C-alpha cells in the first residue's frame, strides 16, 4: 500500500517545491521568523531585568519562550492547509484527478499519498524553525528550553498539522473548487485559532499536564478525521459531485424517502415506493428496529451516564458537605415547592414547565450536535448525572442510604426521564457520527438526512412521551415518595 502512496507523495512534493507561492513563505517563516523570535525573546528578558523583575526574569522567560516556540512551530504548518486544499480539491478542479483514478491505485493509497505530501513539507519546515529557535536561544541567551516542553510543542505541532490536513480533506470532499474549499476552510481555521489561544493561555500558565491531555484529544480528533477522510475520499464521491449546489427540493425528497423507509431496509438510490407509513408501523416496526440498529450508541451513552454518576460519587468523597447542611429528615412539601422557583434557571414546579424545560435542554444539545460531532448532548447529560452521583454520595456521608435517596428522589420520574435522555443523546451522538462515517453507499448529506430522520422518529415517538410522563411523575409522584421516606 505504501509504495503507491509514496509515488504520489514524491510527485506532489516535487510539485509543491516548484511552486514559489508555497516555497517562498515557508522559507521566510522557517529561516527568518525563528531568528526574529530569538531576538524578541532576548529583548523581552532584558526589558524584564531592566524593569526590575530580577529573579522573576527567568520566570518570564519560562513563560514566554514556550509560547514563542509554539508560534514558531505553528506558522509553517499553517501552509499544510493550503497545500492540502490545493492537492485534494485543486486536482479535482483541474480535472487531473481522473487519470489518477484510472490507475490501479486504491482510494486509501491515494488518500495516504496526498495526506503525506500535504504534511511533510510544512511539518519539516516547522521542525526546522523550532530547532533554529532552540539553537538561537542557546547561542544568544542562557535560557535552555526543557526537553519535555520541546517534545510537547513538537507533538502538538504535528497533531495540529494532521488536524488541518485531514480536516481539509473532509472540506474538499464537499466542494468542487478551491475557492469554495477556501470558504469552507473557516470551519478548520476558526477552531484552530481558538485552540491556539487556549494553548497560549496554558503555556503562559505553565499547565503542561493539560497541554498533554490536549495532545491526546488532538490525536483522537486526528484519527477521527482520517477515518472520515478515508470513508469519503473515494472515486465515487470524487466523480459524482459535479456542482456545489444546495438543492433543497432534492434534499427534501431524499429526506421524505428515508423517513418513509423501514429502518432495517433503507436503500439509496430509491428503487421504488417505500412501505406505507402508519403510526402502527412506526411503533411496531420502526422503533424496535431503530433501537436494535443503534445498540452501540445506546450502550455508550448508558455507560457514560453511569460513569458520570460514579464520578459525582467520587467528588462527594473528595468534597464532603458539612454535617447538617442539608436536613433530609426535615423535608416538607412547603419547602419542596418553595425552593424551586428561587433558582431562575430551573422551571416552575408544574408538569408543563418541567416538560418544556427538559425538551429545551435536549433540543439545545441536538442543535449543537453538528458542531460538536455529537459531543454536546453527551456533555449536557454529564452535568445532572454528576450531581445525582454527588448527592447520592453526600447522603451516604449523612448516614442515610444512597439507594433510598435514588429510589425516592430519582426513580419515580427517572424511570421515564433517564431512558428518554439516553435515547435522545444516543441518537444525537449517531447524528454527529453520521457526518464522520456515512454508511456504505451513502453520501455525507444522505447519511446526515438518515440520522436526522431516525432522530425525529425516536424523539417524537419515544422521547417526548417519556418526558411528558416524567414531568407528570416528577410533580405528582416524586414528592409523595420523598415525603414518605424523608418527610418531617
Amino acid at each position, binding site marked *: 500500500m505504501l509504495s503507491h502512496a509514496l509515488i504520489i507523495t514524491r510527485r506532489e512534493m516535487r510539485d509543491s517545491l516548484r511552486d514559489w507561492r508555497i516555497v517562498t513563505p515557508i522559507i521566510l517563516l522557517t529561516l527568518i521568523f525563528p531568528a526574529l523570535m530569538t531576538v524578541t525573546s532576548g529583548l523581552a528578558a532584558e526589558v524584564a531585568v531592566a524593569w526590575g523583575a530580577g529573579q522573576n526574569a527567568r520566570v518570564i522567560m519560562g513563560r514566554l519562550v514556550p509560547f514563542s516556540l509554539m508560534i514558531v512551530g505553528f506558522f509553517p504548518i499553517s501552509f499544510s492547509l493550503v497545500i492540502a486544499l490545493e492537492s485534494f480539491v485543486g486536482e479535482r478542479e483541474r480535472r*487531473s484527478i481522473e*487519470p489518477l483514478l*484510472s490507475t490501479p491505485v486504491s482510494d486509501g493509497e491515494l488518500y495516504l499519498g496526498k495526506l503525506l505530501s500535504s504534511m511533510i513539507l510544512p511539518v519539516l519546515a516547522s521542525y526546522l524553525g523550532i530547532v533554529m529557535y532552540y539553537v538561537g536561544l542557546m547561542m544568544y541567551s542562557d535560557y535552555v528550553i526543557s526537553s519535555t516542553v520541546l517534545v510537547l510543542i513538537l507533538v502538538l505541532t504535528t497533531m495540529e498539522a494532521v488536524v488541518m490536513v485531514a480536516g481539509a480533506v473532509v472540506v474538499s470532499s464537499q466542494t468542487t473548487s478551491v475557492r469554495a474549499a477556501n470558504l469552507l476552510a473557516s470551519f478548520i481555521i476558526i477552531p484552530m485559532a481558538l485552540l491556539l489561544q487556549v494553548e497560549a493561555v496554558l503555556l503562559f500558565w505553565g499547565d503542561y499536564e493539560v497541554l498533554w491531555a490536549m495532545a491526546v484529544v488532538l490525536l483522537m480528533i486526528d484519527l477521527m478525521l482520517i477515518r472520515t477522510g478515508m470513508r469519503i475520499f473515494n472515486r465515487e464521491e470524487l*466523480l459524482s459531485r459535479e456542482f456545489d449546489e444546495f438543492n433543497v427540493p432534492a434534499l427534501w425528497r431524499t429526506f421524505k424517502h428515508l423517513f418513509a423507509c423501514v429502518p432495517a431496509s433503507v436503500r439509496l438510490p430509491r428503487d421504488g415506493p417505500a412501505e406505507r407509513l402508519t403510526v402502527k408501523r412506526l411503533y411496531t416496526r420502526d422503533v424496535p428496529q431503530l433501537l436494535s440498529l443503534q445498540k452501540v450508541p445506546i450502550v455508550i451513552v448508558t455507560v457514560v451516564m453511569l460513569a458520570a454518576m460514579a464520578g459525582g460519587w467520587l467528588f462527594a468523597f473528595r468534597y464532603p458537605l458539612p454535617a447538617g447542611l442539608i436536613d433530609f429528615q426535615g423535608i416538607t412539601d412547603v419547602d419542596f415547592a418553595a425552593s424551586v422557583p428561587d433558582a431562575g434557571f430551573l422551571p416552575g414546579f408544574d408538569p408543563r414547565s418541567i416538560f418544556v424545560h427538559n425538551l429545551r435542554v435536549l433540543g439545545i444539545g441536538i442543535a449543537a450536535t453538528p458542531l460538536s460531532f455529537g459531543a454536546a448532548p453527551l456533555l449536557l447529560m454529564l452535568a445532572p448525572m454528576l450531581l445525582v452521583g454527588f448527592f447520592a454520595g453526600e447522603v451516604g456521608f449523612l448516614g442515610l442510604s444512597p439507594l433510598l435517596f435514588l429510589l425516592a428522589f430519582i426513580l419515580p420520574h427517572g424511570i421515564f426521564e433517564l431512558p428518554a435522555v439516553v435515547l435522545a443523546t444516543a441518537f444525537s451522538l449517531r447524528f454527529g457520527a453520521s457526518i464522520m462515517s456515512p454508511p456504505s453507499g451513502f453520501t455525507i448529506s444522505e447519511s446526515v438526512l438518515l440520522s436526522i430522520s431516525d432522530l425525529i422518529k425516536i424523539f417524537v415517538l419515544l422521547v417526548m412521551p417519556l418526558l411528558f410522563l416524567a414531568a407528570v411523575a416528577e410533580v405528582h409522584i416524586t414528592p409523595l415518595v420523598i415525603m414518605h421516606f424523608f418527610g418531617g
Partner: protein
Amino acid sequence: MALIRTERLTKKFGEFVAVRELTLSVDAGEILALLGPNGAGKTTTVRMLGSILKPTSGRADVAGYDVVGDARKVRGVVGLLTEFPGLYHRMQADSYLHFFGELQGLPRPKREERIEELMRRFGMWHARHQRLGEYSKGMRQKVALIRALLHDPQVLFLDEPTSAMDPQSAKMVRDAIAELRSSHRAVILCTHNLVEAETLADRIAIIKEGRIIALGTPPELKRELLGNPLLELRLGQPLDGLLPAIEDLVTIEEKGDTWVRYRAQEPGDTNPVLVRRLAEEGANIVTLSEVSRSLEEVYLRIVEE
C-alpha cells in the same frame, strides 16, 4: 472474443439515471463508438467499465475481470483517455509519463522503452523535456494518449478525444487513434463527432438518456434508419415519357427535368433491368449513382425521435 461485455448495466446518481440497463459487447480488434449528445451517459459508461465508478445494478467484465470485484485488475488492463487531458503543467512530459508508468507497475527499463517508443510514434520525442504547460492542445492530448497506452492496455477508452480541438490537432489525434487498431485490443470511443465515429469505428452505438437506442455498423444503421439506398439517374434528355417504363421496378422519390431519384429493394438486381429498359426506350443515360447519406441524418433522426 469479447473483451468488453456488459449486462443491464445501470448507474444512478441519486434519482438521476445516468446509464440505463446497457447491454453490449466489444470484441478484440474492434472499435466501438458511443455516440450521443452531452449528458447521454457515455462518460459514465466508460467510468464504470474502467472501474472508476461502481454500477448501481447490472454487471460488466473487461478483459475477463469483473468491474466491481476485480476493480484493481481492471484498472491495470485498461487505458483511459479522459475528456480533458488533466496533465500536471509544471511537470516535464517524460517525468509525467514515468509517474504514471510507475503507478501502473512498470519497471524503469520497461518504462523508458515504452515512453521512447510511444513518444517517437506520436512525434513527441523532441519535446520530452518540455514542461506540459508549454504544450499546444494537440500535444497535450497526445501525451494523454501516450499515458493511456503506456502499459499496452488490452482495452482502451477514449472519451471525447478531439473535443475543443482545432481541426489540425483533431486530425492528428484521429490519425493516432486509427493506428491503435490492433488484433488484441478493444477500443471504445465516446464522441459526439459523427465524422470521427464513422471514420474510426467498426460499430456505432447511439446512446440517449443512458439507453442504447441503435447499434450497428454505419451502413447497417443507415439502411435501418434511412431505408434502402437512394439512387440518382441523370439523362442527357428530358425525362418526359420515360418514367412509365421503370415505375413498376422502383419507388420514385424525387424527379426533375432530366433526373430522377428512386429506391429499389435490391439495387444489384433492379438496376441492370432498369438500364436495359431505358436503353430500349432510347434514353441517353449520363450517370447512375447512389446519393450519399451521412451519419448525421441517421443520428438526428434517432435523437430527435
